[in-house]
């Protein structure tokens, strides 16, 4: 009864007093205990979780349950600061950091009664799309190829957030998405991953990677759960000056799966001969489903699509190099012993950061340095305007856009990619959306011939998360995908 629970199902069980929050929590803690091979968790908050579950049960006994999140065990990417619980960003440089405050996102969940199971592994400072850059080692995808026993990447950077949902180690999780870091791993693991509009969810207390792109969002088993979670974590926050003042919406109660008379755009720039045939086929199936359910499919053009990745690899490293300058061994985190201040900075940072983080800091330093700023950073910001304008134009004609979420399915952890640029291509379908600040969702569509999940991406205009969730629900209900990888890790 306690396997593969969604938020809705667990909430019903708790409401009807069929199962206690403590029983559900203990069942998940046991699953986490048995899943060490997947390496999803950096920290398991056993005592905190048990304590919170007892509090829920106490409220339930007095018929005072807060709402659908009360008693729901969640886990968070280790990028969200959690009071008195180790928060590492999967980096050695923060491997001893215990925040004295709670991020707005986790605080919002806790205030609604959600239970914190622990902190999830991810790429170091969210930089990567394989989860291989983590100081704590790679997360292993619970899915395996039909014809091979090799371990696969879960995608990244929210690899632990996606894999833990796919392996049912938590009911749902929260990740962050700077260039695809929620949608790509969700796609690789058969989960639902939602990146909200920039400004919808507060960034306060979330360890910064690229501040103009970072956005937190849910990874869940269903679209309904994504709606409940978005409602839980979003809303204006005084502590984040880019947090939107628009009122929070009731995404779940307003969920309506009709797509009748909606116009769905298919961007021709996303089509390519390199796209694996099975991904093309699922994309076509998506068009077919939406059209059969009453939507109109329209070919559209986003002419600056190709410029998005290079622009992203200027903007994101530039902001990262600035954000990560705070890790200097003075106020918190790792510090190596040196008698000279500059040497202390240099050796602390060299010892504390991994290779990918160092590369991005150096690229960011380069594009921001005197004499190069206009040629790179300013240029990329202008390209960003062009990309945003592409979407603005298209949304005059269509309500939403349907694309594949990723250009591939999960690949082997052992596959060594020497050229960093090749790894960056994993995010080709997701990065433009971050540059334009739009909301997008990755939903599982089916399996490829190797038996690995394929995800599709829906995109809507800014702050149209309700419409996004509605269309996603329509697709979900039409395809009936079962996210149940064979359990080999116990």
């Amino acid at each position: 009864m306690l396997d593969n629970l969604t938020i809705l199902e667990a909430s019903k069980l708790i409401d009807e007093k069929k199962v206690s929050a403590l029983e559900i929590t203990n069942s998940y803690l046991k699953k986490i205990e048995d899943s060490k091979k997947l390496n999803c968790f950096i920290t398991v908050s056993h005592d905190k979780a048990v304590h919170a579950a007892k509090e829920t049960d106490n409220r339930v006994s007095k018929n005072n349950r807060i709402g659908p999140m009360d008693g729901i065990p969640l886990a968070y990417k280790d990028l969200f600061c959690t009071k008195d619980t180790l928060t590492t960003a999967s980096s050695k440089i923060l491997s001893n950091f215990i925040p004295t405050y709670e991020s707005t996102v986790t605080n919002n969940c806790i205030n609604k009664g959600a239970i914190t199971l622990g902190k999830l592994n991810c790429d170091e400072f969210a930089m990567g799309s394989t989860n291989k850059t983590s100081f704590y080692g790679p997360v292993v995808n619970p899915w395996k190829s039909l014809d091979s026993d090799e371990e696969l990447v879960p995608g990244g950077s929210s690899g632990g957030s996606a894999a833990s949902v796919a392996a049912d180690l938590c009911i749902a999780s929260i990740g962050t998405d700077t260039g695809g870091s929620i949608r790509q791993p969700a796609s690789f693991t058969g989960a639902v991953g939602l990146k909200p509009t920039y400004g919808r969810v507060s960034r306060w207390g979330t360890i910064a990677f690229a501040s103009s792109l970072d956005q937190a969002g849910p990874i869940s088993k269903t679209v309904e759960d994504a709606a409940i979670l978005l409602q839980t974590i979003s809303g204006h926050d005084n502590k984040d000056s880019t947090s939107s003042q628009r009122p929070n919406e009731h995404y779940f109660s307003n969920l309506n799966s009709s797509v009748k008379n909606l116009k769905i755009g298919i961007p021709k720039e996303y089509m390519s001969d390199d796209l694996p045939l099975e991904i093309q086929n699922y994309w076509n199936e998506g068009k077919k489903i939406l059209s059969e359910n009453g939507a109109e499919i329209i070919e559209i053009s986003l002419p600056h699509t190709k410029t998005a990745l290079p622009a992203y690899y200027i903007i994101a490293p530039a902001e990262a190099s600035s954000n990560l300058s705070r890790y200097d061994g003075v106020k918190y985190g790792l510090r190596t012993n040196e008698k000279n201040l500059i040497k202390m900075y240099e050796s602390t940072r060299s010892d504390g950061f991994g290779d990918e983080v160092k590369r991005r800091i150096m690229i960011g330093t380069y594009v921001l340095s005197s004499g190069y700023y206009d040629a790179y950073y300013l240029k990329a910001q202008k390209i960003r305007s062009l990309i945003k304008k592409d979407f603005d134009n298209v949304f005059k004609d269509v309500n939403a856009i349907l694309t594949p979420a990723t250009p591939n399915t999960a690949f082997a952890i052992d596959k060594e990619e020497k050229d960093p640029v090749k790894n960056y291509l994993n995010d080709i379908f997701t990065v433009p959306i971050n540059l334009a600040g739009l909301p997008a969702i990755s939903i599982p569509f089916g399996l490829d011939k190797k038996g690995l999940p394929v995800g599709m991406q829906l995109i809507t205009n800014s702050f149209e998360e309700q419409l996004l969730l509605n269309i996603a629900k329509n697709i979900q209900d039409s395809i009936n995908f079962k996210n149940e990888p064979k359990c080999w890790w116990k």
Partner: protein
Amino acid sequence: MEFDKNSTIKLAKLARLSVNDNQLNSLEKDLKSILKFIDQLKEINTEDIDPTSNSLDQKLILRDDIAENTLSNEDLLKNVPESELGFFVVPKVIE
């Protein structure tokens, strides 16, 4: 300017990273590859285009300038590698 070993050394210095000779070669290769990738943008005409620094259509929201109690001195120093008398301690700067 051609990106070379000296550029890598200079960048590492600016970024406060120490890089040994072994790392230098592979780092130079990686950075060259990334720079080649982002250099594609030079072909795009961006004359008369305004830059976008973030995608939000709203002004930066500022709080009222009122002092609040946030983190205590004790909380601020909880994660400090070295402190004394309530201050952060760094290696000696002035001889």
